[in-house]
């Protein structure tokens, strides 16, 4: 291949067997809940608030404490620490006041899970109910009920902008050009409202954590189903006022994350037990059953968008005015950032010269909104891509031509002012248009159904602080195998497969001789988080550099040992060769034990390659205008089209076919990219068709298990997904690759919404598109309008 003089059959772009799949199919991979801790292990169960808002008048644990096997009952006053990634607004156990139904008010620790489970019934808590605010628009306008009256005292990172005295946990703004003038110049103005509900991650493995304090040193070890060991460590250390090296975080494999295990989730709650004097250093396990995950863990934020657009008679969008309300529930500690992410992408995939955006995180007395695959963009685009279709229809333009006319072509400024990098979006749109036969009116395949096709574009940048860093180590072993230390959580996306391919690419070591292990903050070098579709890119930079560093050491040693030039040495499938001198040997003990050099001395020792990466030039957007020369590292774009048909009689939506393509820059692991596209597409369709948390008027969650909260089963996936990708290389990138893990989840919902409109002539302004709502709308339509807001 290139000037690297490295040859491998298992490098980037090759089909390989994914790392850890064998353990997964054999059932031998141990997730957190599977780890053995022996008879010393204690079990924690939270007592949860039965009301959405109120004062805790008293907590009487005496009856619970008297139950044999109960070791301790911990309340918020025993653990008065506040935690949070971007904004420290979250107490693991409520102190004095409860803010949502399901909030922990006490934690029972017992010798068995069954004892803990029954003891929680015997902790007597008296509440004085307060008015709750559940409606996001009411929460914005009406400060009479404040979810966080102490908001001004909470610590935060500088780029989060809470508004004390209101329920606004973050306010992100874009101000560019003159929006009123743009509207005045426009020939057509449209203004539309779109809504998405809160949705659940639905990972199959619920949260689980074990925490233990060493009674000799006071040091803490945490085993947790977490996406990011270092984020957990830092958030715990900051919240508790401890040094980071007093805390070790180990993340066994996790059973799905989708953002729901990012940042710090239940670890502090578990630690409240492990650090309690009555526990005396025993390990404490906190397993969260399914219903309590739904009640008390992060959800995707509900979203209300009002989008006003001014369009010239030539079909150019001259201005856009956006108001986004994200329902962040009782905590914006993480949810504050999807608000930014949607805000700094608030012109979607389009170039719009005049932009006014207000994106808000709004506190309500509901479970807290956090990271979820797509991080604000599925919400944004499920509104934006519908509004684009509405606009195109209003001005009488083809929806795809309207999109292309206003496309954010390479070089044009995004809404933060940074120039868009190279991409193949137009080519992808044309391919999707052709493959779905967008312009062909086809007959429904089912009797009594109406058929329609819809398209939607997708865009997303990794959303993270400007200084999110990664590092990696590549160690060469005595037998020429390699170990890679990269603290990414491989939660199924296939990160370790990709990293092993990168190391194979750089060192010529066969893929199956390269090993990775799950993250441990005590042994792995630092990585910010496994989120934001950043790992294959950012950690990829570090892994590639570490492998290159190891190669350079190896080449220098061999050059001296063989008395040749480094440029004369080749690495090939686990061997080192110098064809010029007809020398070759397989990688072996010299890599570890040193080289007997011509001068008779031993030189070298274990070869350890080191790599690290932090983006050099990202500048957080200006607080007032949202402008930045480089607001994000890069954008990944794509398009999806859905061919669907709808029954007016039953409200059923049947999908015939999906075509989806993304510009991945470079496909490192094709098997994983296809997996990400298919998985995210179905997750997006599931959200569009079925998903939404439903609360009663008191804030009680009504659908808290998989019986009532439906996610797509295999029965619903009776259609093909034709996935493809383009490879327009990213400039700053290990191999030109860019993030793609989240993108497939972004636009299935609006594509489906557009398809349903094209089938029925009814525009749904709220998700999900359940059978019931379709049925009701088709029957109401005759009497009212084509718009359905119910």
């Amino acid at each position, binding site marked *: 291949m290139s000037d690297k003089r490295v040859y491998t059959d298992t490098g980037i772009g090759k089909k390989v*067997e994914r790392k850890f799949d064998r353990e997964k199919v054999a*059932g031998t991979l141990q997730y957190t809940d*599977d780890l053995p801790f022996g008879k010393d292990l204690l079990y924690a169960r939270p007592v949860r608030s039965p009301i959405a808002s109120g004062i805790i008048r008293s907590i009487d644990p005496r009856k619970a404490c008297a139950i044999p096997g109960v070791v301790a009952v911990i309340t918020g006053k025993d653990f008065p620490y506040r935690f949070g990634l971007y904004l420290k607004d979250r107490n693991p156990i409520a102190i004095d006041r409860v803010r949502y139904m399901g909030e922990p008010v006490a934690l029972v620790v017992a010798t068995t899970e069954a004892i803990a489970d029954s003891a929680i019934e015997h902790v007597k808590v008296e509440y004085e109910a307060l008015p709750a605010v559940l409606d996001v628009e009411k929460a914005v306008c009406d400060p009479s009920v404040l979810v966080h009256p102490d908001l001004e005292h909470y610590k935060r990172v500088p780029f989060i902008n809470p508004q004390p005295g209101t329920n606004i946990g973050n306010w992100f703004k874009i101000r560019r050009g003159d929006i009123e003038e743009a509207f005045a110049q426009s020939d057509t103005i449209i203004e539309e409202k779109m809504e998405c509900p809160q949705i659940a991650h639905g990972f199959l493995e619920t949260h689980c954590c074990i925490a233990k304090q060493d009674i000799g040193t006071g040091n803490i070890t945490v085993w947790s189903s977490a996406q990011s060991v270092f984020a957990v460590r830092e958030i715990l250390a900051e919240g508790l006022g401890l040094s980071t090296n007093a805390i070790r975080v180990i993340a066994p494999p996790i059973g799905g994350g989708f953002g729901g295990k990012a940042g710090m989730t239940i670890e502090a709650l578990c630690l409240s037990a492990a650090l309690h004097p009555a526990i005396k250093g025993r390990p404490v396990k906190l397993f969260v*059953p399914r219903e309590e995950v739904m009640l008390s863990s992060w959800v995707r934020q509900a979203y209300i968008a009002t989008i006003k657009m001014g369009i010239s008679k030539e079909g150019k969008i001259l201005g856009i005015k956006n108001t986004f309300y994200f329902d962040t529930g009782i905590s914006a500690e993480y949810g504050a950032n999807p608000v930014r992410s949607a805000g700094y992408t608030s012109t979607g995939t389009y170039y719009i010269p005049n932009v006014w955006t207000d994106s808000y995180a709004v506190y309500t007395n509901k479970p807290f909104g956090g990271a979820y695959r797509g991080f604000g963009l599925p919400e944004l685009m499920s509104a934006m891509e519908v509004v684009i279709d509405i606009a195109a229809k209003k001005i009488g333009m083809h929806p795809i031509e309207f999109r292309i006319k206003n496309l954010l072509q390479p070089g044009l400024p995004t809404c933060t002012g940074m120039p868009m990098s190279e991409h193949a979006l137009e080519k992808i749109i044309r391919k999707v248009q052709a493959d779905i036969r967008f312009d062909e009116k086809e007959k429904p395949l089912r009797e009594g159904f109406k058929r329609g096709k819809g398209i939607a574009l997708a865009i997303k940048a990794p959303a993270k602080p400007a200084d999110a860093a990664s590092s990696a180590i590549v160690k060469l072993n005595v037998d020429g195998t390699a170990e890679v230390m990269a603290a990414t959580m491989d*939660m199924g996306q296939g990160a370790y497969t990709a990293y092993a391919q990168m190391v194979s690419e750089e060192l010529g070591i066969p893929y199956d001789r390269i090993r990775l292990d799950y993250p441990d903050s005590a042994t792995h070098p630092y990585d910010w988080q496994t989120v934001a579709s950043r790992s294959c890119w950012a950690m990829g930079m570090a892994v590639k550099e570490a492998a290159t560093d190891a190669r350079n050491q190896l080449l220098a040693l061999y050059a001296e040992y063989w008395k040749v030039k480094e440029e004369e040495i080749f690495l090939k499938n686990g061997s080192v060769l110098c064809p010029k001198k007809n020398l070759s040997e397989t990688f072996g003990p010299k890599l570890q034990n040193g080289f007997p050099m011509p001068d008779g001395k031993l030189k070298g020792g274990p070869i350890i390659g080191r790599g690290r990466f932090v983006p050099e030039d990202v500048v957080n957007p200006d607080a007032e205008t949202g402008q930045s020369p480089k607001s994000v590292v890069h954008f990944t774009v794509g398009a999806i089209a859905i061919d669907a048909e709808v029954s007016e009689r039953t409200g059923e939506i049947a999908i015939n076919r999906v075509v989806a393509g993304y510009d991945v820059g470079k496909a490192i692991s094709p098997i994983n990219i296809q997996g990400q596209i298919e998985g995210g597409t179905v997750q997006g369709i599931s959200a569009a068709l079925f998903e939404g948390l439903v609360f009663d008027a008191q804030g009680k969650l009504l659908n808290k298990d998989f019986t009532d909260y439906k996610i797509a*089963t*295999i029965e619903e996936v009776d259609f093909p997904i034709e996935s493809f990708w383009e490879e327009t290389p990213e400039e700053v990138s290990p191999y030109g690759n860019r993030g793609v893990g989240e993108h497939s989840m972004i636009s299935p919902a609006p594509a489906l919404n557009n398809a349903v409109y094209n089938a029925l002539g009814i525009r749904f302004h709220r998700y999900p598109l359940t059978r019931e709502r379709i049925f009701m709308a088709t029957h109401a339509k005759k009497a009212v309008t084509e718009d359905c807001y119910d």
Partner: protein
Amino acid sequence: MPKHALSFVLNGETVDWEVETNATLLQALRENGVTSVKRGCEEGECGACTVVIDELAQKSCLVLALEVEGKSVLTVEGLPAAPGKLHPIQQAFVDEGAVQCGFCTPGFIMTTYAFLKTHPNPTDEEIRHALSGNLCRCTGYLSIIKAVKTAAEALSKPIVAGEGGEGDVR
């Protein structure tokens, strides 16, 4: 809670356990170190704890441990013929990219195992119906359908001498 003696065949070997009368099979298996059965919901919705009891795929969270007295229980640990030698169904899941996080995988494989015994040449629709009690949030299911078909093909081929043998449970 009083404990009762329980004797059954687990992955081909008779085991004698003491279990609490109200323990589910899921709890009993996990307490005895069989952790491939996962607690994803503990109420029969997700299928991550599926095992095969006397040829029938069942959710072990909905079966009391004492109900398997004298019966044969197969979990995914019981499938490989030898260390490193995967069962054709397991191999098909690896080959077709039907595994992502892996948490649901043992359950899918056990449902597939029982299903292919009665449906050696399944249609897509039969596969979807048979596996509809197992949830997967990662893959989007298409690769799982492919894996089941690939496994069915592999299983329909005669066993080559030297492969399979004593521990082969297909």
